[in-house]
């Protein structure tokens, strides 16, 4: 990437940007002067968003939602990676738990939302629990398959040299599984955002989900759109942040020349294919 000339870089940027810019322009033009109740002018929506952020309580909502996502995801990562390393290392355990974990992952966590929130309350604790519960499975399963996918020769070499388990874990198993772990976290992030929204719409005094619900049921259409747009920005921003973290941690992995020459210009964003 870095070897490309600035001109080529500009060209590629232009190629990628024209359609989004066109879409935004069309959106702005099509809704300009719109008198439709449900589709206010896009400029109005943006102005509302700006106003709510500066003067309304939207920043508080945003922080509440962000905090829940961060804590839930962190909890799921710690538990998922920890358990995944153990299960992935012990072959018998991995095979024995296989169907059970598949079933757990296939269970839609959103169905737990009413049960948990109705019994444990509308505070942030149950929401963090729900986010962690939903995010756990992709991280856990990807860690297991990441550990298991490490070349057996690498494993046997580490065993053959009697490398102590602690060193083996930190220098062989964890780095080897890290690409897959990150793929799992990426999937988990999108689940976490969905669960954040659902749990806040279902029952919450604060949060972005609550904001759009309240605005919507109060027929405050620009506010509803503004909140929805903010959630979109949040989702995209978090995924970009995660990609940045991945590049920092996994530079060594992505800089390796791909063995097979495949069109791999976008390997990162594709890995939802994993789960």
């Amino acid at each position, binding site marked *: 990437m870095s070897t490309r000339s600035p001109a080529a870089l500009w060209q590629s940027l232009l190629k990628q940007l024209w359609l989004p810019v066109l879409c935004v322009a069309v959106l702005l033009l099509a809704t300009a002067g719109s008198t439709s109740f449900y589709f206010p002018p896009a400029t109005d929506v943006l102005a509302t968003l700006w106003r709510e952020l500066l003067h309304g309580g939207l920043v508080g909502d945003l922080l509440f939602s962000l905090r829940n996502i961060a804590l839930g995801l962190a909890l799921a990562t710690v538990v998922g990676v920890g358990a995944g390393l153990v299960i992935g290392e012990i072959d018998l355990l991995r095979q024995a738990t296989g169907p059970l974990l598949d079933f757990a992952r296939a269970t839609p966590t959103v169905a737990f939302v009413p049960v948990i929130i109705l019994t444990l309350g509308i505070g942030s604790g149950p929401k963090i629990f729900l986010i962690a519960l939903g995010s756990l499975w992709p991280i856990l399963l990807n860690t297991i398959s990441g550990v298991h996918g490490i070349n057996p020769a690498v494993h046997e070499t580490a065993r053959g040299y009697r490398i102590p388990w602690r060193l083996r874990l930190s220098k062989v198993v964890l780095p080897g599984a890290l690409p897959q772990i990150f793929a799992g976290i990426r999937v988990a992030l*999108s689940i976490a955002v969905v669960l954040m929204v659902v749990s806040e*719409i279902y029952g919450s005094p604060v949060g972005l989900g609550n904001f759009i619900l309240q605005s919507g049921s109060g027929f405050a259409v620009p506010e509803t759109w503004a909140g*929805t747009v903010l959630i979109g920005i949040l989702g995209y921003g978090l995924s970009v942040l995660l990609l940045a973290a991945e590049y920092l941690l996994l530079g060594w992995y992505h800089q390796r020349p791909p063995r097979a020459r495949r069109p791999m210009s976008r390997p990162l964003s594709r890995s939802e294919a994993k789960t």
Partner: protein
Amino acid sequence: MAISTTDRRPTAPDRKRPARRTWRTRHTRAGNPGRRVLLMLQLATVLAVLLIWAALAAARLVSATALPGPAAVFGQFPQLFGDPVYWQAVGDTLNGAVTGFVAAAVIGVPLGLVTGTYAAAEQSSRLLVDVLRSFPVIALLPVFLLVLGSTPTMKTTVVLLACVFPVFLQAQYGARSVTPMIAETMDSYRVPRLLRFRKVILPSATPSVMTGLRLAATTSVLVAIGVEVLTTLPGIGHEVVQAQQGGAAARAYAYIVTAGAIGYSINLLSQFAERRLLRWRPPTHTD
């Protein structure tokens, strides 16, 4: 720090989940248990988890309304199976999920294949799709409630929007997976476009397309239930809310287990379909 010698890029569809492939079909390592032993082990694990669940419920760490015991939950099923409401709810959820899923496939697969075939189209749509894809579709619910109202069409639309991106992206990725050598060969032989599409692009994209469809199938049920939880639309999600609000936590859990069973069967079914469809392919990726 290159640990493994093989290139395990997380994305290439043919390297997907090596673990799953291995645990059933290819036991080369010494000391692996036989099939029957493995099955016993898996059953034992399920039993162990049920026992832990029962112990947790009996210990009353959390109230019985938050976590009823497994006996109470599974005891609901004989009654539910005879109840038309149960089957109606399952039908409603599946109806919304399947309709949205099919619509997403009909839109996403051709669009993905076409944009994947032409580099310019892929580049142009990249950023837009990246932004739209990371959008949590369920957040559109309040807007949709305003615009479309609380109707089954609304549920289908939300499912469609949630499913179309994985399908589209995997189809696009599949169409791009034609190796340059083959692409250049087609160019130099001037293979007609339609023939090229049918005989080269479509077959090489199929594995990736199937992955996309499998992803979308799971998503469709998840989103349908999510919509039902948050609105008054009938379905499994709605029944969970009803049961829990009525204090019948065991029934709510029974519906959740049902949802899990549906998701699990969809997984098994799509794996089966994938294996049947891709039988011509060397079994590098079926799982």
